């Protein structure tokens, strides 16, 4: 049996999602924009998913816009709001550890003339909320901070930062990439004080190719995709009814279990860390108060890729860094204060509620064996 510890890259679609996608493809294949009843039925299915997702983050249905995934959501959010609100106010504040979809979107905006302030953690890898707050000025249009870092599981102080910003600079637009937090830790729009939230389907057991953007009522985005004015004109293009149905189905299945899963995965993380502490030359890079779903470790002296392939040969799947960067170094671990040596040998073990302690035992055994073998052959 293979062991899948790469759940921050993508997750196995759950049966509820598969059934919903299937129903969308075989039964509800009408165009949601059609006036006839086939269209209406498809639209109702889309709206049902919209309601489920809205309920899960505590907002109204019509604040949820479906996209092709979180990358598109974040592009829409950042570029769309910068275009709408950044005519005179030209500063954008963000963290230095964002996912590439946010990082690159903001890089593009920087090229077009925005001033970008990137806040780094301190030398212990901890973000100080005041650093963000102090970087905001009258000239700031947008601030984007992720909730859970995808490489280390670090939880950023988004609540604190956004709540103060919203109080002092009411017209600064706040965006939060919640991809690694959604359905794992409680994500509520009101608590986060976020105007824009990016969500992904395939990280929570739905299909790839679907995501959502929460847009607070009253926030105006200029669309970056133009066409038939679907999704209230914000995201044109015929809605992917089956994928959206699948997205809704998996949120519906997971929502009631967020806490239960959190407790279980926390146990798994604790167990993993205690088993790893039996081994030499292993360091856990994730903080103890990070999201338990992501555990970043370094196997001293062995390059990430080599260990990754060794584990793979035993049907254990982990990731070297963020899977989006295809193994390319993202620099995020450096930002968190990891030495070059540790960053080069980092592995990301990302857990799921379907993983077990037995899997962790097997993983630790194989890791230990690999460590001895590879170090000896050096």
């Amino acid at each position, binding site marked *: 049996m293979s062991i899948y510890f790469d759940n921050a890259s993508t997750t196995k679609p759950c049966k509820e999602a598969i059934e919903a996608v299937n129903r969308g493809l075989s039964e509800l294949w009408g165009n949601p924009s059609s006036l006839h009843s086939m269209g*209406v039925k498809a639209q109702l299915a889309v709206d049902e998913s919209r309601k489920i997702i809205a309920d899960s983050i*505590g907002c109204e249905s*019509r604040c949820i816009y479906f996209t092709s995934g979180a990358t598109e959501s974040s592009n829409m959010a950042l570029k769309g709001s910068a275009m709408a609100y950044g005519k005179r106010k030209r500063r954008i504040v963000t963290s230095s550890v964002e996912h590439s979809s946010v990082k690159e979107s903001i890089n593009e905006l920087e090229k077009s003339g925005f001033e970008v302030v990137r806040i780094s953690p301190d030398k212990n890898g901890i973000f100080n909320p005041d650093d963000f707050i102090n970087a905001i000025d009258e000239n700031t249009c947008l601030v984007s901070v992720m909730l859970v870092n995808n490489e280390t599981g670090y939880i950023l102080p988004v609540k604190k930062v956004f709540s*103060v910003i919203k*109080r*002092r600079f009411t017209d600064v637009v706040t965006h939060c990439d919640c991809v690694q937090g959604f359905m794992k830790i409680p994500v509520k729009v*009101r*608590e986060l004080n976020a105007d824009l939230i990016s969500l992904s389907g395939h990280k929570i057991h739905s299909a790839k190719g679907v995501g959502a953007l929460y847009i607070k009522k009253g926030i105006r985005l200029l669309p970056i995709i133009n066409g038939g004015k679907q999704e209230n004109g914000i995201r044109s293009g015929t809605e992917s009814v089956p994928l959206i149905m699948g997205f809704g189905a998996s949120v519906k299945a997971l929502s009631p279990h967020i806490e239960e899963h959190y407790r279980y995965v926390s146990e798994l993380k604790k167990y993993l860390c205690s088993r790893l502490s039996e081994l030499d030359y292993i360091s856990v890079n994730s903080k103890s108060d990070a999201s338990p779903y992501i555990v970043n470790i370094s196997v001293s002296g062995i390059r990430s890729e080599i260990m990754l392939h060794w584990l793979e040969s035993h049907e254990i799947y982990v990731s070297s860094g963020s899977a989006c960067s295809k193994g390319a170094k993202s620099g995020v671990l450096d930002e968190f204060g990891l030495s070059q040596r540790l960053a080069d040998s980092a592995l990301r073990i990302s857990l799921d509620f379907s993983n077990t302690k037995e899997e962790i035992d097997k993983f630790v055994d194989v890791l230990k064996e690999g460590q001895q073998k590879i170090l000896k052959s050096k």
Partner: protein
Amino acid sequence: MKEIILLKYGEIALKGLNKSTFESIMIKNIKYRLKKIGKFSVTKAQSTVYVEPDEEISDLSEAVDVLKKIFGIASICRVCVCKKDFSDICRQSSEYLEDILPYAKTFKVTAKRADKSFPMKSPEICNQLGGFLLEKFPNLQVDVKNPEVTVTVEIRDTNAYVHAENIKGAGGLPVGSSGNALLLLSGGIDSPVAGYMMAKRGIHISAIHYVSPPYTSERARLKVEQLCEKMTDYCGNIAFFCVPFTEIQEAIKDNCPEEYFTIIMRRIMMEIAQKIAEKDECLALITGESVGQVASQTLSAISCTDAVCRIPVFRPLIGMDKTEIVEISRKIDTFDISTLPYEDCCTVFTPKHPKVRPALSDVEKAQAQFDFEPLIQKAVEDTEMKIFYV
């Protein structure tokens, strides 16, 4: 630190011997709405309702958003619960206000001492707590006239409460305290606003809508259902009646003079609405008419429609401008739904030149050319009912 919500009454406080009836309806409404979002205990004491979260996950901000839409509540305060001990009040309030005070420039303290046995008098509390907070937050200055933040301390029977924010409630009377009425809901901007305004006076609303397929589309009906769902935020559960109206409209078109189409249609709608109101135990009808807005809303047209009514027809928007109505519809969040572009039955077979000042005798004569009674009976029988829950 424990945070709860205090609710202050508006008009209910003035209701002499009937006060407890209003109070208990309001508390029932509050409990019912809060049940959806978490476990809260709701109790009353000293003309104030206390809402306490029973679990840590019960979200107070979510609760505030729900409470803002419950009629009968004049104001809402999120408060920090302190012991009736001045040092505890100081300690808790500096901690509780940590997210607000460091970022404000000016503030003042006010005190309400409902429990007169508390050893310090109100001005003394203000002075000393103000001094304590000034020391704790050196960025602050006192401004009693126009402060950015007003810190309020309430000394009540069992505890003291501190808050810095007074949120305006929906006002009015609790829904259900004034009986039931049936709202004619077209899907436009006005009728949801009319429903909201009567609900504000404590009326429990049911809604009636007329559909004329194939002239009106399924989407038009869905839009009205969406409006009903939205209205439940303020109005509570709504029974929605959907009347098949095609045959009647076709009969009007085939048998009556064109200039009277709309007025006869309105009279028949009222007739059907009264029959449904009777069944649903509604004592009045509500419409979103405003004088002079369209041809069927001139005084003569309204009196022609009213001639068929045996129960009161409330028209809360009668003296309002469109812009005022739009403003409320935005506030209650029905505007975006109302402006979705689907045709409703009022615009089917609209005459080119409707009679602006119809005489009742002419209208009656025009309507008498056909016996609508069997069709009306059938429409009432075929009416579908659906309940929208909060």
